[in-house]
């Protein structure tokens, strides 16, 4: 009994000390740290003409040279473009374009002569370009089955629903399924150099190395069946509606056939904008002495298979060299120069303002 009342008093004293703080003896005083008191050392950028104008000048000084560099680089890139859509009657491909139907088994060929004014020194990239072709349409973009293209047997037999309505025909799966594959560009472009002596020399076009390495080796794979024969692997599937040949007959080279056909891979990477080009072939530079494509007359022979009239599209063949900054594009250089100039100009404006008003503020302070 003694003990209990003894402790009672002890605790009473305790309470008085700690206060009715629920028994917590902890001091409630907030910690005096820079963080908690919001006194962290801070950089306080105050944007005034005086502080900002150096930045403008610096940007201007950096951008203008870059812009010039880019512009020069872009100008050094040689590019040749030829439209072979065959819209107007004068075009050699007019007849092919006019009579086209998907059901034509016999391809129409047209020949387009052209002239290169300058020799192309380095590797030349041959593109086909399409205009007004909305490869970026939402439904179109989705209309593929990546796992089928990755060689998945199940997907091969049972394509994803995204491929609809190009997933199957009569319950037979389409390989490769989907609208993208179905609409694959199937013109064949061949290039001949018309020697001044009158002979027409075919230019060797490399059809490999045009796709991304990751696409060729990781993303796209042929299904691996019981035998290595592609025909057998694709047994039970049908070719896409618009295709003339099944996927396993795209090329004779087994390393470039089936899903890993590079033309196919390139087509499957959907373009971002309705006017686009896609790499078709590479003209490798043979030796260091001669230019890849000397100046002179050339002939482009087109197996005209691909219809663009229904959507008022255009077809082009492009020959281009590339630089470190990619293809020919004067825009960037001009833009850099413009932005740099604007910066410089603004910098000058700010300088004037700073001299006019910045001083006024300061003098106001001083007069205080």
């Amino acid at each position, binding site marked *: 009994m003694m003990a209990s009342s003894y402790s009672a008093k002890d605790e009473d004293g305790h309470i008085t000390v700690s206060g009715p703080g629920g028994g917590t003896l902890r001091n409630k005083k907030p910690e005096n740290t820079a963080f908690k008191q919001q006194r962290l*050392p801070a950089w306080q*950028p105050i944007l*005034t003409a005086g502080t900002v104008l150096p930045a403008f000048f610096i940007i201007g000084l950096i951008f203008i040279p870059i812009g010039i560099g880019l512009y020069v680089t872009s100008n050094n890139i040689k590019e040749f473009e030829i439209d072979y859509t065959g819209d107007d009657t004068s075009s050699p491909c007019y007849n092919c374009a006019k009579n086209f139907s998907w059901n034509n088994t016999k391809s129409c060929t047209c020949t387009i002569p052209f002239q290169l004014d300058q020799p192309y020194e380095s590797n030349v990239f041959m593109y086909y370009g399409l205009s007004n072709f909305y490869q*970026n349409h939402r439904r179109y973009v989705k209309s593929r089955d990546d796992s089928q293209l990755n060689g998945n047997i199940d997907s091969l037999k049972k394509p994803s629903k995204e491929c609809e309505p190009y997933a199957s025909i009569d319950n037979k799966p389409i390989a490769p399924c989907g609208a993208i594959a179905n609409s694959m560009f199937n013109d064949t472009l061949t290039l001949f150099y018309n020697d001044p002596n009158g002979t027409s020399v075919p230019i060797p076009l490399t059809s490999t190395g045009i796709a991304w390495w990751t696409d060729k080796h990781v993303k796209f794979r042929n299904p691996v069946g019981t035998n290595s024969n592609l025909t057998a692997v694709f047994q039970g599937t049908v070719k896409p509606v618009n295709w003339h040949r099944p996927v396993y007959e795209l090329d004779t080279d087994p390393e470039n056939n089936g899903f890993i056909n590079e033309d196919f891979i390139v087509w499957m990477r959907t373009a971002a904008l*309705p006017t686009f080009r896609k790499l078709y072939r590479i003209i490798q530079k043979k030796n260091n002495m001669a230019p890849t494509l000397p100046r002179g007359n050339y002939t482009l022979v087109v197996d005209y298979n691909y219809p663009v009239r229904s959507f008022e599209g255009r077809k082009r063949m492009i020959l281009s060299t590339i630089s470190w*900054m990619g293809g020919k594009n004067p825009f960037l250089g001009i833009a850099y120069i413009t932005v740099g100039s604007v910066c410089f100009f603004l910098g000058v404006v700010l300088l004037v303002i700073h001299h006019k008003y910045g001083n006024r503020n*300061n003098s106001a*302070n001083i007069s205080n």
Partner: protein
Amino acid sequence: MERLRWVQQCCRQLLAGDSRRGWYSDGLPNSSLLDTHSPRGRVCGKQRTVFPRNGRHQQDYERVSRNYKSNAISTTKYTFLTFIPMNLFEQFHRAANLYFLFLTLLNWVPVVEAFQKEITMIPLLVVLIIIAIKDALEDFRRYLFDKKVNNNVVRVFCGGLMNSTEQPSCPHATKEHHRKKRTVVPSFIENEELKELLQLYKSNKIRTTKYSFLSFLPKNVFEQLHRFANVYFIFLAALNFVPVVEAFQPEIALVPIGEEFTPESFHSRIECENPNNDLSRFRGYMEHSNGVRVGLNSGNLLLRSCTIRNTETVVGIVVYAGHETKAMMNNSGPRYKRSKLEKHLNTDILWCVVLLFVMCLTAAIGHGLWMNSFKESIFQVDTETPPALAGFYIFWTMVIVLQVLIPISLYVSIEIVKLGQIYFIHNDLSLYNKQLDSRIQCRALNITEDLGQIQYLFSDKTGTLTENKMVFRRCSIFGVEYPHEENARRLEVYESENTETAVRSVTLKSGYSGKSLSCRSLSCNRSSVSLHTLTAEPMEEDQLSGHVQPRTGAFCSRMAKEVVPDPALGRKLNWLTNHSSSETPSSMELTYITDFFLALAICNSVVVSSPNQPRHVIPEERTPLKSLEEVKLMFQRFSFSPFSALSPSQIKGSPHSLKSRLFIRGKRGSLTLSTPVSNTTDVSGSSQENDSKPDLSAREEEEQDVEDQETEDDLKDTQTNPDEARQSMQDLTKQVEEITDELVYEAESPDEAALVHAARAYRCTLRGRSAESLLVDLPGIGSLAIQLLHILPFDSNRKRMSVVVRHPLTGQVVVFTKGADSVIMDLAESPTDQTEVYSHIKEKTQKHLDAYAREGLRTLCIAKKVLKEDEYDLWLKAHMLAESSIENREELLLESAQRLETNLTLLGTTGIVDRLQEEVPETIAALQRAGIKVWVLTGDKQETAINIAYACKLLCASDKLLTANCGSKDACAALFEDLILEVQGGESLTALTGNGESMSSSFILVIDGRTLGWALEDELRSNFLELSRRCKAVICCRSTPLQKSQVVQLIRDHLGVMTLAVGDGANDVSMIQVADVGIGISGQEGMQAVMSSDFAISRFKHLSKLLLVHGHWCYSRLANMIQYFIYKNVMYVNLLFWYQFFCGFSGSVMTNSWVLILFNLIFTSAPPLIYGILNQDLPADTLMELPELYQDAQTSKTFVPYMFWITVLDAFYQSLVCFFVPYFAYAGSDVGVLSFGSPINASALFIILLHQVIESNTLTWIHTVVLVLSCTSYFGFVLLLSGFCVTCSPPVNPLGIELLQMSHSLFYITCVLTTVAALLPRLFFQALCNTLHPSTVLKSAHMDTVDSENYRRRMQRWNMTHSKTNRLSAGADNAGLEPSLA
């Protein structure tokens, strides 16, 4: 419905407040307040019955208790199993989440599907998970708290066990067995340790308690309940721990009279009302087994979380438990208010919706047209759908694609940001009060930014502007003013040197010093326990005095304790003790003086304790030295004193009746001693355990321990044994005097304590208090026990309190009343025989009253009334009836009190000083400079209010005071017209002189409660608004709580401004609740203000930092963050929108959908948060120094509507740049969809982050870390995705894209150009604006940073001019060339 409940709640709190508030005078008793009784009465009409769990009632108990809630509380919302469904259910009550859900579902519709189905769920899931985690954490904290609370140990008196043993010590045995977590309800609880009791009340919610207390006098056992002293407890609200002393009414009879109380013999049934949330009210009765009913009221109820003081043990019965407790029913948790900014935000969001709609519509129409233009194209997957329908589908697809435009995550972000802001406010060192060890409490979590927009501040006066530490300043008795100049000087000294108070207080207490040793030795005799306490506690107190003092002495600061007596008054009083004094006051005056101080000492509810014996309620003493006879003789010499002026029969009759009455009581008193000892606290007591018939001689030995409440008994003792008694008395007196010096008064309201201390300075000392008697030392007479018949407690309607006592000297029944001057002056009526003298006194006193008020003192009038015995009997009967009634008890008691308090004799009046809190004038000045109009709403008198306003610099000498006191409504209307004209005249005058603000005198409106009442009516409202709008400040005096809230509401609603109300008392609750921001001062007046506030601070001065710095910051941070957030979303979404023009409006995106969704959700989500939490547009010091800066935020410059459009326009521009630079850079190339998106995304990220850097005013390492993290997280994610995602994310496979892109220089070239071009205009215009129109904000910031530079330049210039003057000949035409020449 909600509104109705709120109103009810308000009224309740108002009522609750009034009865708790010490003193304040208001205009008219508010009838509307009374009206609210009726619905409540109906609601609470149902009753519950509570039985003790013992013996006879076991069955009843079990039957009844089943329906009552158990005591285990669980404040958690969820359990493990219910968490997911319930939390989801709650979350889907939010519109934002529903919108998300809608989008997710929309994405499941095949024709409109934009992304993979899983991906659209991510935002929703993230938001849901974040909120769920937050909820879960909160709930877990509640769970832990509940667990702690539920695990508190209580001692339960268990019926069964009690029956098995007859030993009085049995409770202890049972106690040991019942240290269990949860009490079964209702059950007896007894406790003997204060600490444990505290826990007990924390763990067990509300109980009615019938008290037994054990003091530590050895023989104390379970007291008979009718003899209990007052028991006081400290009310501890759950959320903060500011002690508030509440008076606790003694329970009259727990057991029928004549029986002894033991827990097992308690068989009474308790009927009380059903649980409700009215803290101040409790109605019920206890029916004893013999059918006698005893009324119970709120005084009998111990609330959850109280601390018991002044007693060691409380025996009670639980009436409400767990969730039914009043504290729980009142605890509605943190408040949710919607800030102005949030409302503003909603309009912006609405605009976003409009924008979204327009964009979607554009896409839909565009798609339709696009579709129309093609017959059958090879890339069209679906050609069957007619263009119109396709357009319709696209509309919905676009809603999904552009969903980010509606910043749903903004709501979550805002919540997080506000939590961060609260964290910093909470941790601010300068808002910490060292004395109370209290930080600011942020009760409302979501109106931090409103702090930065306050335009009107409504402040209470007492306790808010002032310290609410009342100090007796001067008084007037018998029409004679005693200026107490010495006292005034002392107060000034205190103000100037607070530190020396301790020293001074010691010296002031001289006279009785050096006796502590004897005291201790004396007390040693009592018991070992007492010895222990006496030696141990002072030491402890010394050590910790710094902490102890402010708490224990909350109401009796040293300053209040030491009142220097007025020499004149002292002389007159001395005459009582020393007749040889030269100045002989008239005996009537002397009687007045004596009665005045007696009234001061006893007419209150102050409880007395000494630090040595905190719970020792009554240091019962025998009447010392001078016999009562002697005193009586002395008094009889005043032949014309009011006492003897009464009929002689009364005088003769009363002692007799008194004696007979007391005799009975005395007998009962001795019964106490024969009570079986069941709980003893010390050695000597234990020796007497089980001693049913205590030894009388033993009792005499322990003279201190004898508990005698009846003076007459003691008197007899002393008379029979004079010498012995005298000797012991002398010792005792010394000791008593020593103890008296250490007495601690704990009062409900500070002015009570001040008055008691004042009385003590005149040696009229309240020594102790019990339920039925008061022990008072009187000068020249010594200790007297005064029989206390009734206390009619203070209430705000009556504005006074009274005690009914039997006068110790004359034996008459005397009513002492203390109250507001207006009331008492009306009630005071001149006795018929002495009209002249009396009216003279009254006149003089009124004059003094006015003078006091002008001085800014709080005035109270003291009056008394002598009751004839038959009058008293008559009244008593009615009063008893009122007390025992259950229905309308309050009203009946009020009536009864009013019946008694008539025909009072005015004794005098007191003036009490309430000092201003520190730094109040500075704070008010700062707030006014910040453009905040400060209104003072007080219940005080006009003169007092004006004085305080002067003191706190609300009023300057140059200000013109407009006073509005009207007798009628029409007069009021006319007055307003006049005043408006006057103000307009003044304004035009100012305009004419054109001297600006510095010279012009501003107007201050002072309006009293009655006029305010009219002003608030419809007809005069507009005039009042017009008038008050033009005034610099408004002072409303004598306003009721309701008026306060009405004023706030009027201003808030009709002027459409942000209002802040600050107050500390319960009468400010309604005002606090009505205002946009309610701030409670956690002071001395209780918890209501704090409980209803949004923020609770401890000092008024904290307001300036809270508003000027934190408010400013919070507002600018949040406003900027919201803008930034909207910018971010618009900017990013527009990128997608522009792309639609190049993809046939097909809803295609150039980004992987994972990146698209996570971009807003993760990669760019943290920077705005950091920005919103940490940004400081200006340093705190500057904000404090230049309060004018506050106005910037006030006029919402940061968030004006056009700023929204500027932001949106900028976002449009940036998105245009961000899209079209890459577009042109890649146009015509072989770029793939995702490859095209890659530089766009990257530059968007850079633009968004750098945009924030431009917008930020401060960049700390945290910003840097977060920005870097944002960047790395984005690039890390996309690189990982492009490296390892072979067949994941099916339709748009990102494999290899980013890796390839980032290996191309074109990517970087594009990104740099895009970023620079996008940010250029903003950078330029900001620099331009800052230079051409430097706002005050920037100017000051500039001043800060450029100060040193300025100095340098100034010096340079000075040198320049000097050199100029020196070389006059050089010709200073070209000053610019000067330096170069020199």
